[in-house]
């Protein structure tokens, strides 16, 4: 009998991790990585941060150089769009027509940007930030622009705003909700970020929507409707960061169950026994949260991929890792541990005025997460406390004499 053949579709963080985990676990069959982009797997976080700011060259974005994939014995097919998946027939057909057969398949297809729905959204040359190509293009445009409109006050929008404002550009952020990062942080953090950006002269238009974009001879007109009525701004560059949608179409057409992402169980398994999925494209059963969720983060991509790779090899690992995330804007390093949404009690540690504080979140007396600004020890302690399900009280958090890291280490033993 010939060697097994495993195929990974999607050349991002999760796809690379699956390949690495398979080989590390001793898988010695054929392994192919099919990637749509023309570049080897690379880091996305710097695309809206250091790379955009011109502080890091492209070569340093790659996770691994080309020889690494030869050493790992992975056949990498770049610039290859996977058109059709035949789950029954166990074949994948790329757009060039050459059929790839597989015994086990991993879908790490990622997500794509939601396009701006307003008139003009598809004609004025709006910049999105997802791929290396996007970021290169935006960096060029930034260099030639003085005024920017950023549509979307989420992480992408705010990180780009921070880069642009630091370059001395005039920045206007337009956000539909009445506060920044409304989906992901509590009001205290939203306020902190609003103050932070305003202190760098970023104009925030909250509770506002873009009605229309129009190309002019000398720029782009952005029509905004907000709490105070309608207004128009003329800018040189428009960036949109209004969320992503999971790339589930390949799976959907193949008959796999999808619902706001490719549905996978706690082992990373799709509705097909020979297909797993991991990363931004999945709606998954999250062991830590105890519910089904779609997470968009490096941590999720990496940890889900590790579990999914195990599942391809017949192991039954469960995806229970504590979610964590970070964002860098100006001198503020935000680190998120767990998920604070749905909390009924919040406890502050540190000093908001000094931009060094953590808000810890409790629900029914249990610690569920924490958002830290420039307090990495709080963040790491929280991650450990959550990972080990260490019982900790709000009083202990509130007491600055309590060393949380030590508490986490002691109680974990």
């Amino acid at each position: 009998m010939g060697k097994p053949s495993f195929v990974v579709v999607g050349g991002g963080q999760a796809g690379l991790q699956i390949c690495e985990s398979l080989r590390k676990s001793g898988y010695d069959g054929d392994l192919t990585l099919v990637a749509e982009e023309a570049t080897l797997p690379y880091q996305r976080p710097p695309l809206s941060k250091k790379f955009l700011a011109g502080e890091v060259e492209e070569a340093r974005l790659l996770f691994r150089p080309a020889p690494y994939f030869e050493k790992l014995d992975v056949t990498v097919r770049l610039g290859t769009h996977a058109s059709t998946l035949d789950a029954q027939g166990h074949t994948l057909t790329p757009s060039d027509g050459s059929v790839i057969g597989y015994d086990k398949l991993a879908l790490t297809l990622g997500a794509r940007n939601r396009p701006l729905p307003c008139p003009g959204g598809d004609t004025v040359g709006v910049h999105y930030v997802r791929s290396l190509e996007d970021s290169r293009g935006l960096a060029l445009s930034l260099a030639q622009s003085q005024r920017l409109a950023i549509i979307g006050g989420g992480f992408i929008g705010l990180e780009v705003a921070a880069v642009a404002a630091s370059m001395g550009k005039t920045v206007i952020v337009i956000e539909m909700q009445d506060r920044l990062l409304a989906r992901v942080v509590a009001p205290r953090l939203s306020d902190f970020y609003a103050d932070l950006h305003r202190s760098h002269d970023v104009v925030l238009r909250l509770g506002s929507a873009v009605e229309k974009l129009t190309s002019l001879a000398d720029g782009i007109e952005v029509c905004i409707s907000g709490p105070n009525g309608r207004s128009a701004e003329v800018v040189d560059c428009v960036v949109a960061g209004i969320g992503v949608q999971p790339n589930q179409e390949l799976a959907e057409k193949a008959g796999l169950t999808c619902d706001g992402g490719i549905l996978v169980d706690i082992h990373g398994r799709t509705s097909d026994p020979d297909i797993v999925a991991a990363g931004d494209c999945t709606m998954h059963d999250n062991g830590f949260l105890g519910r089904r969720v779609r997470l968009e983060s490096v941590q999720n991509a990496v940890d889900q991929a590790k579990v999914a790779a195990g599942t391809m090899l017949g192991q039954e690992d469960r995806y229970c890792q504590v979610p964590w995330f970070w964002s860098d804007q100006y001198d503020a390093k935000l680190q998120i541990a767990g998920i604070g949404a749905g909390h009924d009690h919040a406890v502050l540690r540190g000093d908001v005025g000094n931009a060094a504080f953590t808000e810890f979140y409790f629900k029914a007396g249990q610690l569920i997460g924490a958002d830290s600004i420039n307090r990495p020890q709080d963040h790491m302690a929280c991650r450990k406390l959550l990972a080990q399900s260490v019982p900790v009280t709000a009083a202990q958090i509130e007491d600055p004499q309590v060393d949380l890291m030590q508490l986490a280490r002691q109680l974990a033993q």
Partner: protein
Amino acid sequence: MPNVIYRQADGSEQTVDVPVGWSLMEAAVQNDVEGIVAECGGGCACATCHVYIDPAALESLPKINDMEGDMLECTAAERQPTSRLSCQIKMTAELEGLVVNIPDRQT
């Protein structure tokens, strides 16, 4: 190009050419040096690129800033006076021949 010697807990060594300006973490990851995980890709946000610097060379490194100092309290392997986060140390010509010891665990 200056080089760095990465030494594993078992004593095995790898000599790696490191371009000036690259961090010790990046050079390790790009050259398949085992044991430096770097979960956050160099953002001083995860403490999984922890290394022990050869004591003789400690003085010639840039000082530990507050953020790195705080993160060093969170390493999996015990923090020593020689502990640094390799993502925070940029290669210079003066660091030629630097010996970097890799702890037995990062998580």
